[in-house]
């Protein structure tokens, strides 16, 4: 379109990306041809959760969008291309690669870490903590290090300290001020924070000004402080605040604040109306906003400016809720009470539980002006609502911060929030927006999230959002029917419990006792396979037994996978992907004899396609004679344990991953579950088995095994999360026993572990409490139950081919021996395929 204007965005961080999303989602690409320059290699990623990079997440899982998002949306993203100059006369930006004209330009260059001007600050191993490349550098430097120091005890400094701890370094934090997080907490809070952080093994040094850094004696560096005290360390990370990256703006003569930052107005316009600035580079009303939520608000204001809307940036609330090194810290409004001279303070300090809470209240006691929390953020959401919506405080404001057990701690229910209450500050979603979405047809949390994006930014509002959505749905009389189907007024989990508690062993028995009376009590293709799976998980009787066979999907009935022309594919188990040459030859011979198309699967085994129903018993007869057993590729059950070759062959491997994979596959084979389960075992951190995309991922360490859970490939990929570290073999089996049985027990039908995990109230923390700390007291039972399944395993195919009654089902026609004549094959690339 000839009228299209050129819009250039410099910077592909969280805020720059948010602006792109605004442009894409609101149809602004018809008007603007958008080009984005990113200096880093990676497309925009989640900097808020950067420290998770060391606990298992990678650049891709931290990315804010799918790899093809920019291209698909029609936005040109030029990564690894830094802008070196803005030529305002010709309206062009200049990079090493060329000159690019613009009509409108947005600066979203963010900030850089401030490195104090200390002699020696540029030594090898003196690093910063800001980008993924910084993290790679820290990781590389940590390889031969045992100790690490973070200079700076603020928010980012403690994040960096957490990262160093994650790299198994003895970590210290050096802070210039007299307390940690001086911006967010006061002396009492800071002292509590120090105690808690030191209890985690992180050394905290306060009131230390580093004078110089020089060669150490025992370690690589020696830091010398103002009083000539010294600290030796192998690695130093500077995290002493951020500075706006305003050099491009300075060079082209835009107005810059005294202490840096590109001056912008409410429309995010700089002194040149063709140029806007957003995020941490922008200086609004003498303030830089170093949080993501205000950055997003600026992006929205900038979008509005670019499209002649009327949304403006009017400052932002800097309230934050953090979990630093596992310690809750919350800060709301005027937390120090120094902006309101007449304010009154309430303080609560529990030295045993190590919790500190402070309220800053207006002189009449009616309004909350600020609050400070250390050690427990559970009241943060409630307090924030009082603060940001000006809700009148209860008569006893102190009740808001006193322990729950002392009674009368009024939590602010979702019903009490006004329509204007901001629920998600990242995406600026109010309670009114949520109500409107529900009125427009959203029927659950997922629907509201999809429509409003609420809770998809920092995720801090997840619990609040859920309570608002639940409340609003209930208020509208919506009762979510969780019945599995019309035959049972129960969820899968309830049916599971009924079967266990009452010891019910057949579907008929279950539907007689607990089925809905106004049906024929035949069941259906929803409840029958679900109950079959529950019965198998609990009692592990052969699924081809007469009582169970009518319950099974065709794949389970015939113990093979039906393909689109009615033939089946056959997948024998190849535990861990390890197979002898003799067995490989047998697979080849069988495939040849029965004209089967052969393909290697993603799970490291071999799939033989095109088997006719009546040939299945003969095929299996030959396979079993050669030592194969069924692979359960047809079942909602353990599929494969993929492995890399491990320490047996690989020069990098630190454990025998193949051996472990075989152990695990043989332990859990045959376990029927709500959906299929896949494992992966990698022999070292290079992760060649792609274990982090599996339901259960295991990665070898020098000391044992790290366990990851709830990953998924497929349609909605999800990275597995680190669940436990450095387990020995026995601990690993026990943990997986419990985890799998808990999943089998509580998941919905056809719910993979990843979705189950996302729907689990309390999330990963809850799962850890149940599985690792036995908070429900069920672990013995879970282990016993798994042992029963392990002990009663039998190969279903071996069972079936020894039973003539069961083999009767494998006839194409009950009254005729001919094969189904309508199955027609044709040849392609030397093999047969359906015509």
């Amino acid at each position: 379109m000839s009228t299209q204007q050129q819009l250039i965005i410099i910077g592909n961080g969280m805020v720059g990306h948010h602006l792109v999303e605004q442009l894409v989602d609101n149809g602004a690409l018809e008007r603007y041809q958008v080009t984005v320059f990113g200096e880093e290699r990676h497309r925009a990623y989640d900097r808020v959760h950067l420290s998770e990079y060391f606990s298992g997440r990678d650049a891709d899982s931290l990315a804010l969008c799918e790899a093809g998002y920019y291209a698909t949306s029609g936005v040109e993203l030029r990564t690894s291309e830094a802008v070196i100059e803005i030529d305002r006369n010709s309206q062009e930006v200049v990079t090493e690669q060329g000159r690019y004209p613009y009509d409108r330009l947005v600066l979203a260059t963010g900030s850089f870490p401030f490195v104090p001007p200390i002699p020696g600050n540029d030594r090898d191993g003196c690093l910063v903590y800001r980008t993924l490349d910084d993290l790679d550098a820290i990781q590389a430097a940590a390889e031969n290090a045992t100790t690490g120091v973070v200079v700076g005890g603020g928010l980012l400094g403690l994040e960096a300290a957490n990262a160093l701890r994650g790299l198994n370094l003895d970590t210290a934090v050096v802070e210039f001020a007299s307390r940690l997080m001086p911006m967010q907490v006061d002396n009492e809070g800071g002292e509590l924070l120090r105690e808690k952080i030191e209890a985690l093994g992180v050394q905290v040094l306060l009131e230390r000004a580093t004078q110089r850094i020089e060669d150490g004696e025992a370690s690589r560096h020696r830091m010398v402080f103002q009083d000539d005290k010294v600290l030796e360390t192998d690695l130093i990370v500077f995290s002493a605040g951020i500075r706006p990256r305003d050099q491009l703006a300075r060079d082209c003569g835009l107005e810059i604040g005294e202490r840096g930052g590109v001056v912008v107005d409410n429309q995010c316009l700089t002194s040149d109306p063709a140029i806007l600035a957003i995020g941490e580079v922008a200086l609004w009303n003498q303030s830089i906003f170093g949080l993501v939520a205000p950055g997003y608000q600026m992006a929205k204001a900038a979008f509005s400016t670019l499209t002649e809307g009327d949304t403006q940036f009017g400052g932002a609330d800097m309230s934050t809720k953090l979990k630093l090194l596992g310690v809750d810290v919350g800060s709301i409004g005027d937390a120090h009470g120094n902006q309101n001279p007449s304010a009154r303070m309430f303080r609560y300090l529990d030295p045993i539980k190590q919790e500190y809470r402070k309220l800053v209240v207006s002189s009449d006691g009616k309004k909350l002006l600020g609050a400070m929390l250390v050690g427990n953020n559970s009241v943060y959401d409630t307090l924030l609502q009082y603060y940001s919506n000006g809700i009148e405080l209860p008569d006893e404001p102190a009740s808001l911060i006193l322990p729950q057990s002392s009674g009368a701690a009024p939590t602010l229910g979702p019903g009490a929030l006004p329509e204007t209450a901001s629920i998600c500050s990242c995406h600026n979603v109010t309670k009114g927006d949520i109500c409107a979405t529900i009125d427009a047809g959203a029927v659950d949390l997922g629907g509201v999230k999809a429509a409003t994006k609420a809770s998809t930014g920092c995720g801090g509002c997840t619990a609040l959002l859920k309570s608002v959505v639940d409340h609003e749905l209930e208020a509208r009389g919506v009762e979510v029917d969780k019945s599995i189907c019309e035959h049972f007024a129960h969820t899968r989990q309830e049916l599971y419990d009924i079967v266990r508690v009452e010891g019910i062993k057949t579907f008929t028995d279950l539907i007689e006792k607990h089925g809905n009376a106004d049906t024929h009590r035949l069941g259906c293709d929803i409840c029958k396979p679900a109950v079959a799976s529950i019965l198998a998980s609990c009692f592990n009787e052969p699924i081809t037994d007469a009582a169970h066979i009518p319950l099974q999907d065709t794949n389970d009935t015939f113990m093979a996978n039906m393909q689109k022309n009615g033939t089946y594919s056959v997948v024998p188990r190849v535990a861990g992907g390890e197979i002898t040459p003799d067995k490989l030859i047998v697979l080849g011979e069988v495939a040849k004899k029965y004209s089967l198309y052969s393909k290697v699967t993603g799970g490291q085994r071999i799939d033989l396609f095109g088997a006719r129903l009546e040939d299945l018993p003969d095929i299996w007869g030959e396979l079993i004679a050669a030592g194969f057993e069924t692979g359960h590729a047809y079942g909602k059950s353990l599929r494969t344990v993929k492995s890399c070759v491990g320490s047996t062959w690989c020069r990098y491997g630190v454990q025998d991953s193949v051996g472990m994979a075989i152990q695990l596959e043989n332990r859990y084979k045959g376990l029927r579950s709500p959906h299929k389960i896949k494992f992966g075992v990698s022999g070292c951190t290079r992760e060649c088995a792609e274990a982090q995309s599996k339901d259960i991922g295991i990665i070898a360490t020098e000391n044992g095994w790290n366990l990851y859970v709830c990953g998924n490939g497929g349609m909605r990929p999800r990275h597995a999360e680190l669940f436990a570290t450095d387990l020995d073999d026995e601990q690993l089996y026990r943990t997986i026993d419990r985890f799998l049985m808990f999943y089998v027990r509580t998941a919905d039908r056809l719910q993979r572990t990843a979705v189950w995990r996302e729907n689990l109230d309390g999330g990963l923390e809850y799962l850890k409490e149940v599985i690792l700390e036995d908070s429900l007291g069920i672990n013995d039972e879970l282990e016993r139950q798994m042992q029963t399944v392990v002990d009663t395993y039998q190969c279903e195919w071996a069972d079936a081919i020894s039973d003539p009654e069961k083999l009767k089902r494998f006839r194409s026609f009950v009254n005729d021996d001919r094969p189904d004549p309508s199955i027609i094959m044709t040849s392609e690339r030397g093999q047969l395929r359906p015509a």
Partner: protein
Amino acid sequence: MTGTALKKEMDMADIQNSEAFENHASENNTAWQKVCTKADLVAFSGVAAWLETADGPAQVAIFYLPGLGQGKGDELFALDHHDPFSNANVIARGIVGDLKGAAVVASPIYKQHFRLEDGQCLEDEDVKLRTWKVKFKGDEVWVEG
């Protein structure tokens, strides 16, 4: 009445009526023919049978739901083994159940439901499977086709 007692009664009725339909060609050129025995059936599930008819061969799915309808309805059903959605002969391998008061089979490929009584597809009113009359004659299963 228990399921077994019910079955016995129905079997008796079939035997008494057997002379009436045995080898008796109807006007539209069909005849009752024996396809298999009760032992070939799978209770609450289906099997496939090969049928030679005057119009040519047909593949038939036979479902056996002992005790269905508490004596009022049928317990044997015969319908097309051919699944019109996938064009594969697989209907006998589907899961049997009841939906909204009607006994149905779900296609094992794309999971559409077909009413056993008349072959009607519940998801697509334009699709209907062919059905055959089917009866026990003693322990034998007879289909008219």
